[in-house]
Protein backbone atom coordinates (compact mmCIF):
# COMPACT_ATOMS: atom_id res chain seq x y z
CA UNK A 1 0.00 0.00 0.00
CA UNK A 2 1.43 3.33 -1.06
CA UNK A 3 0.93 5.96 1.63
CA UNK A 4 1.43 9.66 2.12
CA UNK A 5 1.35 11.55 5.42
CA UNK A 6 -0.06 15.06 5.74
CA UNK A 7 0.54 16.81 9.07
CA UNK A 8 2.00 20.21 9.83
CA UNK A 9 3.82 18.81 12.87
CA UNK A 10 7.14 17.06 12.13
CA UNK A 11 6.89 14.95 15.28
CA UNK A 12 3.48 13.61 14.22
CA UNK A 13 4.77 12.71 10.76
CA UNK A 14 7.74 10.90 12.26
CA UNK A 15 5.49 8.89 14.60
CA UNK A 16 3.16 7.81 11.79
CA UNK A 17 6.06 6.89 9.51
CA UNK A 18 7.59 4.83 12.31
CA UNK A 19 4.32 2.97 12.94
CA UNK A 20 3.98 2.31 9.19
CA UNK A 21 7.54 0.93 9.05
CA UNK A 22 6.34 -2.07 11.10
CA UNK A 23 4.18 -3.16 8.15
CA UNK A 24 6.32 -4.33 5.20
CA UNK A 25 3.31 -4.17 2.86
CA UNK A 26 3.06 -0.43 3.44
CA UNK A 27 5.36 2.22 2.04
CA UNK A 28 5.53 5.95 2.75
CA UNK A 29 6.00 7.73 -0.57
CA UNK A 30 5.99 11.29 0.72
CA UNK A 31 5.36 13.40 3.80
CA UNK A 32 3.77 16.84 3.63
CA UNK A 33 3.60 19.61 6.20
CA UNK A 34 1.19 21.49 3.99
CA UNK A 35 -2.07 20.27 2.42
CA UNK A 36 -1.65 22.40 -0.72
CA UNK A 37 1.61 20.64 -1.58
CA UNK A 38 -0.11 17.30 -1.09
CA UNK A 39 -2.87 18.32 -3.52
CA UNK A 40 -0.28 19.14 -6.17
CA UNK A 41 1.40 15.78 -5.55
CA UNK A 42 -1.89 13.90 -5.87
CA UNK A 43 -2.61 15.56 -9.19
CA UNK A 44 0.38 13.68 -10.60
CA UNK A 45 0.68 10.57 -8.44
CA UNK A 46 -1.66 7.91 -7.18
CA UNK A 47 -1.61 6.63 -3.63
CA UNK A 48 -3.60 4.00 -1.76
CA UNK A 49 -3.79 5.65 1.65
CA UNK A 50 -3.52 9.13 3.13
CA UNK A 51 -2.76 9.64 6.81
CA UNK A 52 -4.33 13.02 7.32
CA UNK A 53 -4.24 15.49 10.20
CA UNK A 54 -7.47 17.40 10.71
CA UNK A 55 -6.03 20.51 12.38
CA UNK A 56 -3.75 22.27 9.95
CA UNK A 57 -3.24 25.99 9.45
CA UNK A 58 -5.60 27.50 6.87
CA UNK A 59 -6.82 24.15 5.55
CA UNK A 60 -8.49 21.43 7.61
CA UNK A 61 -8.34 17.73 6.79
CA UNK A 62 -12.01 17.84 5.83
CA UNK A 63 -11.37 20.78 3.46
CA UNK A 64 -8.62 18.68 1.93
CA UNK A 65 -10.89 15.66 1.32
CA UNK A 66 -13.51 17.88 -0.29
CA UNK A 67 -10.91 19.43 -2.56
CA UNK A 68 -9.43 16.31 -4.10
CA UNK A 69 -11.47 14.67 -6.85
CA UNK A 70 -11.26 10.97 -6.04
CA UNK A 71 -9.90 10.61 -2.53
CA UNK A 72 -8.18 7.30 -1.78
CA UNK A 73 -8.60 5.61 1.60
CA UNK A 74 -8.02 8.10 4.38
CA UNK A 75 -7.04 7.59 8.00
CA UNK A 76 -7.64 10.71 10.04
CA UNK A 77 -5.13 11.53 12.74
CA UNK A 78 -5.93 14.16 15.34
CA UNK A 79 -5.65 15.19 18.97
CA UNK A 80 -9.35 16.00 18.95
CA UNK A 81 -11.94 13.31 19.70
CA UNK A 82 -14.82 15.60 18.75
CA UNK A 83 -14.60 15.13 15.00
CA UNK A 84 -15.45 11.43 15.07
CA UNK A 85 -19.04 11.92 13.97
CA UNK A 86 -18.09 14.20 11.07
CA UNK A 87 -15.67 11.50 9.92
CA UNK A 88 -18.62 9.15 9.38
CA UNK A 89 -19.91 11.47 6.68
CA UNK A 90 -17.05 10.62 4.32
CA UNK A 91 -16.99 7.33 2.50
CA UNK A 92 -13.21 7.44 2.02
CA UNK A 93 -12.43 7.69 5.75
CA UNK A 94 -11.52 4.23 6.96
CA UNK A 95 -10.50 5.03 10.52
CA UNK A 96 -9.90 7.81 13.00
CA UNK A 97 -6.79 7.77 15.20
CA UNK A 98 -6.36 9.96 18.25
CA UNK A 99 -2.83 11.19 19.00
CA UNK A 100 -0.59 9.89 20.43
CA UNK A 101 -1.15 6.78 18.33
CA UNK A 102 -0.59 3.53 20.18
CA UNK A 103 0.89 0.48 18.50
CA UNK A 104 -2.23 -1.58 19.14
CA UNK A 105 -4.61 1.06 17.76
CA UNK A 106 -2.46 1.58 14.68
CA UNK A 107 -2.50 -2.15 13.98
CA UNK A 108 -6.30 -2.13 14.08
CA UNK A 109 -6.38 0.75 11.62
CA UNK A 110 -4.15 -1.21 9.23
CA UNK A 111 -6.50 -4.19 9.48
CA UNK A 112 -9.39 -1.89 8.59
CA UNK A 113 -7.42 -0.54 5.65
CA UNK A 114 -6.87 -4.05 4.33
CA UNK A 115 -10.53 -4.98 4.53
CA UNK A 116 -11.89 -1.63 3.28
CA UNK A 117 -12.79 -1.37 -0.37
CA UNK A 118 -11.40 1.39 -2.52
CA UNK A 119 -13.76 4.34 -2.23
CA UNK A 120 -15.54 5.26 -5.43
CA UNK A 121 -17.88 8.08 -6.19
CA UNK A 122 -19.89 5.80 -8.46
CA UNK A 123 -20.54 3.20 -5.80
CA UNK A 124 -22.68 4.17 -2.85
CA UNK A 125 -21.73 3.07 0.62
CA UNK A 126 -24.83 0.91 0.94
CA UNK A 127 -23.61 -1.23 -1.97
CA UNK A 128 -20.20 -1.51 -0.39
CA UNK A 129 -21.32 -2.67 3.01
CA UNK A 130 -23.41 -5.80 2.78
CA UNK A 131 -25.27 -6.69 5.94
CA UNK A 132 -23.28 -9.86 6.49
CA UNK A 133 -20.04 -7.93 7.02
CA UNK A 134 -21.22 -4.77 8.78
CA UNK A 135 -23.99 -5.36 11.26
CA UNK A 136 -24.38 -2.00 12.90
CA UNK A 137 -24.06 1.75 12.60
CA UNK A 138 -23.42 4.53 15.08
CA UNK A 139 -25.41 7.64 15.85
CA UNK A 140 -24.30 10.75 17.72
CA UNK A 141 -26.62 11.62 20.58
CA UNK A 142 -25.51 14.20 23.16
CA UNK A 143 -21.87 13.76 22.06
CA UNK A 144 -22.06 9.99 22.61
CA UNK A 145 -21.73 7.52 19.77
CA UNK A 146 -24.41 4.90 20.24
CA UNK A 147 -24.28 1.60 18.40
CA UNK A 148 -27.46 0.37 16.73
CA UNK A 149 -27.65 -3.11 15.21
CA UNK A 150 -29.28 -3.12 11.77
CA UNK A 151 -31.51 -6.05 12.62
CA UNK A 152 -33.05 -4.23 15.61
CA UNK A 153 -34.25 -1.28 13.53
CA UNK A 154 -37.90 -1.37 12.56
CA UNK A 155 -38.60 2.03 11.00
CA UNK A 156 -36.76 5.27 10.27
CA UNK A 157 -38.92 8.36 9.92
CA UNK A 158 -37.93 11.81 8.64
CA UNK A 159 -38.87 14.61 11.06
CA UNK A 160 -37.71 17.93 9.62
CA UNK A 161 -33.99 18.31 10.34
CA UNK A 162 -34.05 15.11 12.39
CA UNK A 163 -34.75 11.45 11.88
CA UNK A 164 -36.51 9.15 14.32
CA UNK A 165 -34.93 5.68 14.43
CA UNK A 166 -37.23 3.09 15.95
CA UNK A 167 -35.72 -0.15 17.17
CA UNK A 168 -37.12 -3.19 18.96
CA UNK A 169 -36.31 -1.68 22.34
CA UNK A 170 -35.82 2.04 22.01
CA UNK A 171 -36.33 5.08 19.81
CA UNK A 172 -33.55 7.54 18.91
CA UNK A 173 -33.92 11.06 17.54
CA UNK A 174 -30.84 12.05 15.56
CA UNK A 175 -29.89 15.21 13.69
CA UNK A 176 -29.56 13.78 10.16
CA UNK A 177 -31.48 13.15 6.97
CA UNK A 178 -33.28 10.14 5.57
CA UNK A 179 -30.91 10.15 2.59
CA UNK A 180 -27.82 9.90 4.82
CA UNK A 181 -29.13 6.99 6.83
CA UNK A 182 -30.44 5.28 3.70
CA UNK A 183 -26.85 5.20 2.42
CA UNK A 184 -25.70 3.48 5.60
CA UNK A 185 -28.40 0.82 5.72
CA UNK A 186 -28.06 -2.52 3.90
CA UNK A 187 -30.34 -2.67 0.88
CA UNK A 188 -31.25 -6.31 1.41
CA UNK A 189 -32.96 -5.42 4.69
CA UNK A 190 -34.22 -1.89 4.25
CA UNK A 191 -36.49 -0.19 1.76
CA UNK A 192 -37.71 3.35 1.41
CA UNK A 193 -41.47 3.00 1.08
CA UNK A 194 -42.41 6.65 1.35
CA UNK A 195 -40.54 9.96 1.17
CA UNK A 196 -40.59 10.09 4.97
CA UNK A 197 -40.17 6.40 5.85
CA UNK A 198 -37.61 3.61 5.52
CA UNK A 199 -38.67 0.22 6.82
CA UNK A 200 -36.93 -2.99 7.76
CA UNK A 201 -38.68 -5.43 5.43
CA UNK A 202 -37.94 -8.35 7.77
CA UNK A 203 -40.12 -6.70 10.42
CA UNK A 204 -43.28 -6.48 8.32
CA UNK A 205 -46.28 -8.03 10.02
CA UNK A 206 -48.82 -7.38 7.29
CA UNK A 207 -49.49 -5.24 4.26
CA UNK A 208 -52.60 -3.48 3.14
CA UNK A 209 -53.12 -1.51 -0.06
CA UNK A 210 -51.26 1.63 0.93
CA UNK A 211 -49.63 0.74 4.22
CA UNK A 212 -47.54 -1.81 6.09
CA UNK A 213 -47.77 -2.81 9.73
CA UNK A 214 -44.40 -2.95 11.47
CA UNK A 215 -44.45 -3.63 15.22
CA UNK A 216 -47.27 -1.29 16.30
CA UNK A 217 -46.73 1.26 13.55
CA UNK A 218 -48.78 1.61 10.42
CA UNK A 219 -46.44 3.03 7.78
CA UNK A 220 -47.71 4.58 4.55
CA UNK A 221 -46.46 3.11 1.28
CA UNK A 222 -46.37 5.46 -1.70
CA UNK A 223 -47.67 4.22 -5.03
CA UNK A 224 -44.24 4.59 -6.65
CA UNK A 225 -42.52 2.45 -4.02
CA UNK A 226 -45.13 -0.28 -3.81
CA UNK A 227 -43.84 -2.40 -6.76
CA UNK A 228 -40.36 -2.65 -5.19
CA UNK A 229 -41.91 -3.65 -1.88
CA UNK A 230 -43.99 -6.36 -3.52
CA UNK A 231 -40.90 -7.71 -5.30
CA UNK A 232 -39.23 -8.25 -1.93
CA UNK A 233 -42.01 -10.43 -0.60
CA UNK A 234 -41.88 -14.18 -0.69
CA UNK A 235 -45.46 -14.51 -1.91
CA UNK A 236 -47.23 -17.86 -1.82
Amino acid at each position, binding site marked *: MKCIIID*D*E*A*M*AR*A*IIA*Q*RISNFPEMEVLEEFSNAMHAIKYLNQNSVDVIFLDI*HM*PDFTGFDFIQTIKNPPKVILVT*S*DKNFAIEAFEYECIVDYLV*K*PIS*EERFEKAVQKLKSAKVPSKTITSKEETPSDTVNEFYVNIDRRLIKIEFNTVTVVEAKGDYILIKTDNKNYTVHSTLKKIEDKLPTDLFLKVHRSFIINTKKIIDIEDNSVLIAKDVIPVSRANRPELMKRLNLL
Partner: protein
Amino acid sequence: MEQPNLNYINELSGNDESFKQKMIAIVKSELPQEIENYRSLLESQNFKATAEMVHKLKHKISVLGLEKSYYIAEQFEDNLKQSSIVLQNEFEEILNSMQNFVDDL
Protein backbone atom coordinates in the same frame (compact mmCIF):
# COMPACT_ATOMS: atom_id res chain seq x y z
CA MET B 1 3.46 17.68 39.76
CA GLU B 2 3.93 14.84 37.25
CA GLN B 3 7.21 14.73 35.39
CA PRO B 4 7.78 14.30 31.66
CA ASN B 5 9.23 10.99 30.53
CA LEU B 6 10.35 9.15 27.40
CA ASN B 7 8.16 6.06 27.84
CA TYR B 8 6.15 6.66 24.67
CA ILE B 9 9.21 7.52 22.58
CA ASN B 10 11.02 4.43 23.91
CA GLU B 11 8.05 2.19 23.05
CA LEU B 12 7.79 3.74 19.60
CA SER B 13 11.53 3.42 18.94
CA GLY B 14 11.93 -0.16 20.12
CA ASN B 15 15.59 -1.00 19.52
CA ASP B 16 15.94 1.68 16.89
CA GLU B 17 18.31 4.10 18.64
CA SER B 18 18.69 6.30 15.58
CA PHE B 19 14.93 6.82 15.39
CA LYS B 20 14.87 7.67 19.10
CA GLN B 21 17.55 10.31 18.56
CA LYS B 22 15.63 11.62 15.56
CA MET B 23 12.48 11.98 17.68
CA ILE B 24 14.38 13.75 20.45
CA ALA B 25 15.93 16.11 17.90
CA ILE B 26 12.49 16.91 16.46
CA VAL B 27 11.02 17.60 19.90
CA LYS B 28 14.03 19.74 20.85
CA SER B 29 13.56 21.76 17.69
CA GLU B 30 9.74 22.01 17.53
CA LEU B 31 8.86 22.52 21.19
CA PRO B 32 10.59 25.90 21.72
CA GLN B 33 9.12 27.20 18.44
CA GLU B 34 5.63 26.14 19.45
CA ILE B 35 6.01 27.65 22.92
CA GLU B 36 7.24 30.90 21.40
CA ASN B 37 4.29 30.96 18.99
CA TYR B 38 1.94 30.29 21.88
CA ARG B 39 3.35 33.18 23.92
CA SER B 40 3.26 35.65 21.09
CA LEU B 41 -0.32 34.72 20.09
CA LEU B 42 -1.48 35.01 23.69
CA GLU B 43 0.26 38.35 24.06
CA SER B 44 -1.58 39.64 21.01
CA GLN B 45 -4.81 38.34 22.60
CA ASN B 46 -5.59 36.25 19.55
CA PHE B 47 -7.39 33.65 21.64
CA LYS B 48 -8.63 31.51 18.78
CA ALA B 49 -5.14 31.12 17.31
CA THR B 50 -3.73 30.58 20.82
CA ALA B 51 -6.24 27.78 21.35
CA GLU B 52 -5.04 26.19 18.11
CA MET B 53 -1.44 26.38 19.30
CA VAL B 54 -2.42 24.82 22.65
CA HIS B 55 -4.17 22.12 20.65
CA LYS B 56 -0.94 21.42 18.80
CA LEU B 57 1.10 21.44 22.03
CA LYS B 58 -1.23 18.81 23.49
CA HIS B 59 0.39 16.21 21.25
CA LYS B 60 3.85 16.97 22.71
CA ILE B 61 2.34 16.87 26.21
CA SER B 62 0.96 13.39 25.63
CA VAL B 63 4.08 12.13 23.85
CA LEU B 64 6.11 13.20 26.89
CA GLY B 65 3.81 11.10 29.08
CA LEU B 66 2.04 13.96 30.89
CA GLU B 67 -1.39 12.41 31.19
CA LYS B 68 -2.88 14.72 33.84
CA SER B 69 -1.37 17.78 32.23
CA TYR B 70 -3.07 16.80 28.98
CA TYR B 71 -6.46 17.35 30.58
CA ILE B 72 -5.39 20.77 31.93
CA ALA B 73 -4.29 21.69 28.40
CA GLU B 74 -7.59 20.46 27.00
CA GLN B 75 -9.50 22.59 29.50
CA PHE B 76 -7.29 25.60 28.81
CA GLU B 77 -7.86 25.17 25.07
CA ASP B 78 -11.63 25.22 25.69
CA ASN B 79 -11.27 28.30 27.91
CA LEU B 80 -9.33 30.14 25.21
CA LYS B 81 -12.05 29.35 22.71
CA GLN B 82 -14.34 31.26 25.07
CA SER B 83 -11.75 34.09 25.28
CA SER B 84 -10.88 33.12 28.85
CA ILE B 85 -7.32 32.67 30.12
CA VAL B 86 -8.27 30.66 33.20
CA LEU B 87 -5.63 27.93 33.72
CA GLN B 88 -2.95 29.98 31.93
CA ASN B 89 -0.53 29.67 34.88
CA GLU B 90 -1.08 25.94 35.23
CA PHE B 91 -0.58 25.44 31.50
CA GLU B 92 2.60 27.50 31.44
CA GLU B 93 4.00 25.48 34.35
CA ILE B 94 3.53 22.41 32.15
CA LEU B 95 5.35 24.12 29.29
CA ASN B 96 8.24 25.06 31.58
CA SER B 97 8.48 21.53 32.89
CA MET B 98 8.56 20.14 29.34
CA GLN B 99 11.12 22.66 28.17
CA ASN B 100 13.41 21.92 31.14
CA PHE B 101 13.10 18.19 30.51
CA VAL B 102 13.83 18.54 26.78
CA ASP B 103 16.80 20.85 27.44
CA ASP B 104 18.41 18.12 29.53
CA LEU B 105 18.04 15.40 26.88
